[in-house]
């Protein structure tokens, strides 16, 4: 299904070739990105909540640290599982190649995990909230590049024209905000009260809106810039293999949550917010998966 125009004069068709590698980064990498979004996202949300709703979020220090630790470890586990030589992961630390976003990201993620353990320690063992809050600031600062480096990595994939900076950087931050807020609403919403929930929902809704705008812009205008983008997007247009999945993702992650949030604001319903949160969380995986898969379907040679 080539978007490329085929002239009668050329009518070019490949008649003999070897099998070319298709999908090399599978659903494991999707979980990787999805888990990292949640892991960093909840940290952003905690910081926000401690600033704006301190009385409601006092008890969340330790639980959120734990959640972040769990999800960052899911991210690390699936990164490892995706490697063809998982036991050589230590090479990244003993033979680092600093031009690679993978290396920089791995080091930052390691430092991030260390800081998370510090947070857990400070809140559970030492029970020192002041120290915690001070440390949290640095954790938040580090969380930004930790969530962004994947975008850097994607843009270093010269072959995959679809993954452009700065669009991917924006999408990573938005994904963290969206999944972080959704997670908080879902798991801790009942403890937070209506105000906090509504603000989290606002973050969720606005993140969804901006993400959706970026995806739609790419969808409509991307093909006008680069031939490879046009060819890649063919896989989510018409009867492409990922068309249905793409639209399911867009609805689940962005459109439906936005609608539900507007609805929830009117009726002040926390349960509707929770529904929006579940849809957004699950849908984020779908959206990320489609965006990961389709550039790998394009033949490079």
């Amino acid at each position: 299904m080539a978007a490329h125009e085929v002239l009668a004069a050329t009518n070019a068709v490949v008649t003999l070739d070897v099998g070319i590698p298709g999908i090399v980064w599978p659903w494991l990498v999707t979980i990787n990105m999805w888990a990292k979004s949640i892991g960093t996202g909840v940290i952003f949300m905690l910081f926000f909540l401690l600033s704006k709703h301190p009385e409601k979020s006092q008890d969340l220090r330790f639980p959120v640290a734990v959640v972040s630790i769990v999800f960052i470890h899911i991210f690390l586990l699936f990164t490892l599982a995706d490697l063809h030589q998982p036991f050589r992961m230590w090479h990244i630390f003993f033979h680092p190649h600093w031009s690679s976003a993978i290396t920089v990201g791995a080091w930052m993620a390691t430092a991030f995990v260390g800081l998370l353990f510090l947070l857990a320690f400070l809140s559970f063992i030492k029970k020192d909230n002041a120290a915690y809050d001070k440390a949290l600031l640095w954790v938040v600062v580090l969380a930004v590049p930790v969530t962004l480096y994947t975008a850097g990595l994607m843009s270093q994939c010269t072959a995959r024209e679809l993954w452009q900076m700065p669009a991917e950087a924006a999408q990573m931050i938005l994904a963290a905000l969206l999944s972080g807020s959704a997670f908080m609403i879902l798991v801790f919403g009942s403890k937070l009260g209506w105000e906090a929930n509504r603000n989290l929902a606002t973050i969720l809704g606005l993140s969804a809106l901006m993400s959706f705008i970026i995806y739609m812009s790419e969808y409509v205008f991307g093909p006008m810039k680069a031939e490879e983008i046009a060819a890649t997007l063919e896989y989510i247009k018409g009867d492409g293999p990922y068309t249905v999945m793409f639209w399911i993702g867009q609805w689940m992650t962005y459109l439906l949550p936005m609608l539900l949030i507007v609805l929830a604001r009117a009726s002040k319903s926390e349960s509707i917010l929770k529904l929006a949160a579940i849809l957004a969380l699950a849908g984020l995986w779908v959206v990320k998966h489609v965006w990961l898969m389709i550039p790998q379907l394009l033949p490079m040679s």
Partner: protein
Amino acid sequence: MQLGFLVDLHLCMGCKGCEIACKVENEVPLSTWRLRVKYVDVGTFPETKRTFTPLRCNHCENAPCERICPVSALHYLDNGIVNIDKERCIGCAGCVMACPYGAIYIDPQTNTADKCTYCAHRIASSMMPACVVACPVQANIFGDLDDASSNISKYIQTNQGNVQVRKPEKGTNPHHYYVGGGNVTMNPLASFRPEGHDLFGKMTSKMPIGGH
């Protein structure tokens, strides 16, 4: 020294001698290819032609694979070759994602990334790459691009205006040239690629753990 390749597509006849020479020389596993010759048919009967395009690693000066490799398994040699290191490689497949030419594959026996090395082991022994030696029509020209009097430099000079590289817009500055190429041979999007109808359309090797 900057070693480079040039393929004269006017001469190449798609015999696949170079493919097999490479396989033997480098013990490339079944179902994976460091070098291959792609057939693209053009035209409508009775005005039809068949084009043959040998495709291998371009050993780019600005290689995205080398840049993205987290552990420098892919690294530059003094002679411009982008070399591999199967003991260093962690199998992240970032290079496979980064290479705009699809030149890299995961070796199913070692579970590491692998690609054409311009027969660097032969170069180090002062010998030409195996595919250059094999080619019955001497369509493969190889040599030092830094040396204006080398065979490859002279070939480029003689064929000015008809020398191409694959995907120049990617900024990789490849050291692999073609004479007589066109959109159909250089751009994979310029031809229709039917799935399941050509002889080797589907990869049949099972990829290892990592879920591929």
